[in-house]
């Protein structure tokens, strides 16, 4: 692994840098379900006894920042390269959730156009009883500009 990446990993991985609270509105996740093409009434009908958000809905919960405030600028433009959700329990209408974010991984890939740095930001999501209900990861890729 490149030395600069090793240093970033040692300095920033697994250190919480953001905490944000969400009050979940069932109408919002119903719209998410309908736009996605969900047909199961447990996702689309507010009166359903098991009404809940589709598992991927937590990807729409956004923190105040994607990286630690003191994270150094990298030489390139960041793009959203992907998202992962790990589901543990349903998200319900009216739930009060807390999202706690940390950098979960930093790694590189090298292609014809040079090095790409991948930053994986994980938001751990808890309900108001402290139960861990989901992880929502955002993978950002930075294509480094040639320094020549």
């Amino acid at each position, binding site marked *: 692994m490149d030395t600069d990446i090793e240093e970033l990993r040692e300095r920033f991985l697994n250190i919480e840098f953001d905490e944000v609270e969400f009050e979940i509105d069932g109408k919002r996740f119903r719209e998410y379900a309908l736009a996605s093409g*969900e047909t199961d009434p447990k*996702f689309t009908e507010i009166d359903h006894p098991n009404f809940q958000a589709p*598992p991927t809905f937590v990807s*729409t919960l956004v923190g105040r920042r994607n990286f630690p405030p003191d994270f150094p600028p990298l030489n390139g433009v960041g793009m959203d390269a992907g998202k992962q959700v790990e589901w543990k329990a349903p998200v319900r209408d009216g739930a009060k959730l807390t999202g706690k974010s940390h950098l979960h991984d930093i790694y590189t890939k090298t292609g014809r156009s040079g090095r790409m740095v991948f930053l994986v930001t994980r938001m751990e999501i808890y309900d108001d009883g402290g139960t861990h209900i989901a992880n929502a990861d955002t993978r950002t890729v930075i294509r480094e500009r040639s320094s020549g």
Partner: protein
Amino acid sequence: MADRVHSIADVEFGETLPAFDPDTSLDNIKRFGRHVGWGTGRFTDHEIARKEGFPGAIVPGVLSQGFLGAMIHRWAPNAQITVIDTVFRAPVLVDHPHKITGVVTNIDEDEKTVEIDITVTNEANETRVFGTATIKLP
């Protein structure tokens, strides 16, 4: 290929899930923008997106992930998606037809889990989004 599966016993290794045509219309993306988020010009206005360097308005990645989940739920209504990982390889363009497909790549009868490779392709059959999902079935 089964149109629907209800338990792990119904699932066959290598089977292809019924293809799903997601609603990538501008109307759907605008509605998503109003009620969920991602309502800025690059998603809801072709002209603004072109000025930002895209071929046209693009579907938010969070919605592409939603499309993939919906395909799985349509095929397996009793499934619980426990992990879904999506890689945004290239933009999914608004108002262009896309197809969502899935292939069963692993079945664990003991854990009652199934792994599925999932893909969003455009009309030229180019992969725009791909990934994997793990589901749990009765």
